[in-house]
């Protein structure tokens, strides 16, 4: 008898992703696909994609999808979920999209306690447009708009934004966790967090938010293995991992 140890998630199409080698988006995309299969979301799920490196992601899934304008995914998702609350709506955004262009949209979706799940990819850089500074770029980190030798400087650009903590302050957000995907164990933890975020939505709770620290070797100009280390050595010092808020019990 043949026993599957591993197989490609069924919801995936045959499309090849456009991500660079060593990018974290592909890992998170695959975890989502596994969860869509495991939970059975194809029938009733709608994915809302952003502008940025993941803006072609609708092609990877046999799922209904809406590719929102830059930063507007939480607003579009509000329209979708309010129109039909029976759907499972998963919003996926990068840091340029969610923290910069769409700060108002994500904050107010959280303030209203919109009942959808948000996956936030924080790679501390603008990947797609060519390694410009993001609001999440670390102090001293270089980017094409924060060049060497100084990198990001406070006087000019302020401090990195900690979205998982900010959103955790909102009563409408029931769950906020920060994870990463730089080791097998952490990929497993990331999947657990994503699963919880989706399950909370299916249980009709408020907004659930998962921030994923994600490697961008191309944007960071590092070898992929070095990028994985950099998450540990630099990123997690500014963006600590873990559950920041879990009000799912109280919300019952």
């Amino acid at each position, binding site marked *: 008898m043949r026993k599957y140890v591993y197989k490609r998630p069924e919801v995936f199409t045959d499309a090849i992703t456009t991500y660079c080698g060593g990018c974290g988006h592909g890992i998170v995309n695959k975890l989502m696909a596994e969860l869509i299969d495991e939970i059975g979301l194809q029938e009733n799920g709608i994915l809302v994609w952003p502008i940025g490196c993941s803006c072609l992601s*609708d092609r990877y899934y046999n799922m209904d*999808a809406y*590719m929102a*304008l830059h930063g507007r995914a939480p*607003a*579009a998702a*509000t*329209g*979708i979920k309010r*129109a039909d609350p029976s759907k499972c709506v998963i919003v996926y955004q990068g840091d340029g999209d969610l923290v910069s262009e769409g700060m108002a949209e994500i904050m107010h979706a959280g303030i209203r306690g919109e009942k959808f799940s948000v996956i936030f990819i924080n790679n501390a850089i603008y990947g797609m447009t060519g390694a410009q500074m993001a609001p999440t770029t670390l102090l001293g980190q270089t980017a094409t708009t924060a060049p060497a030798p100084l990198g990001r400087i406070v006087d000019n650009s302020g401090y990195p934004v900690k979205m998982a903590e900010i959103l955790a302050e909102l009563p409408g957000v029931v769950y906020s966790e920060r994870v990463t995907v730089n080791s097998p164990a952490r990929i497993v933890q990331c999947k657990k967090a994503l699963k919880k975020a989706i399950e909370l939505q299916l249980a009709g709770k408020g907004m659930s938010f998962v921030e994923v620290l994600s490697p961008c070797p191309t944007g960071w100009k590092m070898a992929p293995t070095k990028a994985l280390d950099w998450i540990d050595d630099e990123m997690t010092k500014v963006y600590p991992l873990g559950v920041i808020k879990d009000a799912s019990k109280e919300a019952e």
Partner: protein
Amino acid sequence: MGKKEFLQGNQAMAESAIRAGCKLYFGYPITPSSEVPEYYAKAMIERPEEGITFIQAETEVSAFNMVAGAVATGHRAMTATSGPGFSLGQEAVSYMSAGDLPGVIVEVMRPGPGDGEILASQGDYFQAVKGGGHGDYQTLVLAPYSVQEMCELMQESFELAEKYRNPVILLSDATLAKMRESVELPGYVPQKDPASKPNALRGCGKNEPHKVVTCGDGPVQWEEFNARLQEKYKRIAENEVRYKTYNLDDAEIILVAFGSMARVCESAMKMAREKGLKVGMIRPISLWPFPDKAFEGIIGKKFLVCELNAGQMVQDVKLAVENKRDVFFYGKLGGTTPSPKNVLAEIVKLGGESK
């Protein structure tokens, strides 16, 4: 005949939208359109059996994008705004145009530019008709001139939006929005199952997914994408022209006006006729597609285009007439509306002699 009611423009319009099956309203309050969100907010609480959802959005940027998301599911949804809010919504109007999304937007014009004033204006004609957002797109633009017509065009906006899967703008102004008139409200429109509408996001199961994507895939694909949109606009232009003509048979001077200004012109035309002046009127109702055909074959007459702006629709009239030297303009800025007497004086200046 149904029951006549004495209703304010904004409120009558909101009620008509609800009866058109628009149960989702997303908006940000702004004078002079705020009675629309207020009406929906109240209806949501007081008429629970109708399943109305009202969300006060954080910005018009969000409100328009919420409408886009909601209509993507096949449900009817709308927003109403004014001037600066309409500007903020333009990226989503461009998006809805590209995404074949039937959003309905009420724009209650007030005089700009900038923060401007909160009185009546028609200064957003260009923005609505020529496309205030980016890219080659067109939205249907309908301009009512009475509260009754507002109710009817409000309902028609939803039908047209879904027929062509294209955003529709109902272009109102502060006068029409705030005035009260006796109206017969239209009835409830029977609704289709939202999930049965083309490309409605609903969850695809094992079937072909439904997608709203406005991102190009190379110049060849994007040219085809755009050509398809232009094909749609051609069909709309061929089939959805709306206008009304008055006393054209013997008219020597033809007034051209839309919206609240057309009311003034209608009175001026009557006054002129009483004086024996041969004055007629063309009232465009669809501003896009512009009723070029209303002007076809009219030769050797003078056109006096009257607008509450510095001269916007007049450019479309010049494109529509045989000889643009026959086209004259009278406009008013700042928020006041000229009286019929003011328009009559312009008619007399143009040499509207009785013959």
